[in-house]
Every structure is written in structure tokens, then in C-alpha cells.
């Protein structure tokens, strides 16, 4: 299952979602938003991998991570430039609509990690899996992008890099942990799954929380809003004298 030289290949799940991806990428505005978000994700991922380069004690890993980080920063720039080109051509004004973010959760997966506190083995296992997942999705994106050759070319170029990233992370994991590298991969898989559940749970909770607060807003707030507006009318603009007693105690939170 974990061949020493895996190549980019979309997973069955990603293949199944091809029509959805095709629909998402068909619209210029959505494409711009996705590219901008990818630009941010790649740059953020680059920073985390750069951090990994700074904290590892393994000289070879330091050089590889550094190369990897430079690639990610470059990808970020490619995505941003392409989004800017599309914006220029379409003159669209990036209104955020449906983005299908849940289809590509976690970016490079590094938001699951505290880079500073992780071992090289854990870092490599996470990186390998997230690069693999990214390569799978980027493969689909490239395939659904026939109508936009420049964007397709970007995915093509990035896919090439992702293959290198997948390969080096796996070979290096096997180097630093020859006996137990598969165990690390499985642990990383389970951890990713758990983190994915937590993301889903917190997203769901966030939605429920928003609904709850919105209901409160419309049910509870109107009379208070009326009073607040009335009080605001009574307030005069300009200076407000500071009462010497207002700041006499540091125990107060109000």
C-alpha cells in the first residue's frame, strides 16, 4: 500500500467527486476564490515546513525541508498571480460564495501539528500523507481544468513538486525510522482522521452557535436596540471626561 515511490493518483473518493469539482472550478469567481485560498494555504504550509527546517537537528532533513518550503512559497505565488490575472480579465469582485471547502480539508495538514514540538518521524509521516492527499486532489483539479490551460499548467507544475515531496518524505521516514515507519504512517492516518472529525464537530458547533445567537439577536435584542439607539442620541460627540475613580482598582474587569 505504501510503495517506496508513490506517484500522484487521485483517490477513489476524489474521483467520485469529480463532477462537483468540475462545477466548482467552472465559474471564474469561484476559481479566483479557490486559487486565493490555495495561495494562502501553500504559503502557510511553507511557513510551517520552514519552521520544521529550523527546528530539526538532522542536517539532510533541514535542507530538504528548506527546499520543500521554498516550493510551497513559490506555489503560493503561482496561485496568487493566477488569481490576480483572472480577476483582471473578469473584473469580478471576489464575492465569497460556495467554496466547497470541506472537499479539501486541512490544506497541507500542518494545522494538525505543533511543528515545534513534533519529532522528525511524526513530521515526515504527516507531510507524506498530506502531500499525498494534496496530489490526489490536484490531479483532479488539473483534469477538470481543460477549459483554462494556464490554471491547468499551474496544477501540472505543482503536481510535479508534490510528487517529489511525497517521495522524499517517505524515503526519509524510512531512513530515520527504518523499523517502524509504517507504524508512524498509520498513527498519522488515525490522527488525521481524528482531527478531521474534530474539525467537522467544531464546524457543526459553530453553525449551531451562530443559529442560536442569530435567533437571540432577532428575538431578544430589538427592545434593547431601541434603548441603545435612544441612549446614543443623548450622547454628545467629542471629549468624555475620565473620572479619576474609573481606573482606581486593577481588580475590576469592567
Amino acid at each position, binding site marked *: 500500500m505504501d510503495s517506496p515511490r508513490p506517484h500522484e493518483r487521485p483517490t477513489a473518493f476524489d474521483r467520485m467527486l469529480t463532477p462537483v469539482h468540475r462545477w466548482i472550478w467552472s465559474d471564474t469567481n469561484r476559481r479566483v476564490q479557490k486559487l486565493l485560498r490555495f495561495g494562502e494555504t501553500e504559503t502557510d504550509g511553507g511557513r510551517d515546513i520552514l519552521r520544521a527546517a529550523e527546528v530539526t537537528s538532522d542536517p539532510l532533513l533541514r535542507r530538504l525541508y528548506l527546499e520543500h518550503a521554498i516550493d510551497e512559497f513559490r506555489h503560493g505565488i503561482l496561485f496568487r498571480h493566477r488569481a490576480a490575472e483572472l480577476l483582471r480579465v473578469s473584473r469580478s469582485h471576489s464575492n465569497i460564495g460556495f467554496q466547497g471547502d470541506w472537499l479539501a480539508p486541512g490544506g497541507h495538514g500542518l494545522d494538525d501539528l505543533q511543528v515545534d514540538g513534533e519529532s522528525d518521524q511524526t513530521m515526515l509521516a504527516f507531510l507524506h500523507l498530506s502531500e499525498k492527499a494534496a496530489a490526489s486532489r490536484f490531479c483532479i483539479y488539473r483534469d477538470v481544468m481543460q477549459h483554462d490551460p494556464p490554471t491547468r499548467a499551474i496544477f501540472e507544475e505543482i503536481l510535479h513538486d508534490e510528487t517529489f515531496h511525497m517521495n522524499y518524505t517517505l524515503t526519509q521516514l524510512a531512513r530515520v525510522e527504518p523499523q517502524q515507519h509504517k507504524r508512524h504512517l498509520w498513527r498519522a492516518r488515525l490522527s488525521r482522521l481524528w482531527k478531521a*472529525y474534530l474539525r467537522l464537530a467544531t464546524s457543526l458547533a459553530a453553525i449551531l*452557535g451562530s443559529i442560536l445567537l442569530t435567533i437571540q439577536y432577532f428575538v431578544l435584542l430589538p427592545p434593547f436596540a431601541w434603548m441603545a439607539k435612544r441612549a446614543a442620541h443623548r*450622547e454628545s460627540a467629542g471629549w468624555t471626561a475620565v473620572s479619576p475613580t474609573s481606573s482606581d482598582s486593577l481588580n475590576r474587569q469592567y
Partner: protein
Amino acid sequence: MIKTRGKTRRGLIVFGSTFGSMAQLARGLWQSDSDKRWLTPLAVFLCVTGLLLILGTAVEALAPFIYSIW
């Protein structure tokens, strides 16, 4: 050295501190120079809602179920 505490433990400590903070808010609004007594019930009610949010943050895995309490 700062002792590391789990998220749930930290959440419970925060939860325990909320009542004192709410009392300070209520007292502050009640005694406010700009006459904001009318805001006190709403502010306190929202803070009680906040307890739910704290619980949701402390126990991420159960967060959606905690909201269903409401």
C-alpha cells in the same frame, strides 16, 4: 516551568471563573456613569450563553451535542 493542563481541565477552570466575571460585569453596568442599567439583563443572559460556548471549546469532540442542550 508552566505546567501543561489539558484542554478540558483548562475549560473547567475558565468555567469556574465566569461567575465572578459576570458579577463584575453586572455591577459595572449597574453603577455605570453612562446609565446602562437597562443593558444588564441582556449582557448577563448573553454571558450565560457564553458558558455553552466555553463548554463547546473545552470539549471539542462533543461540541455539537453540547449545543443541542439548548
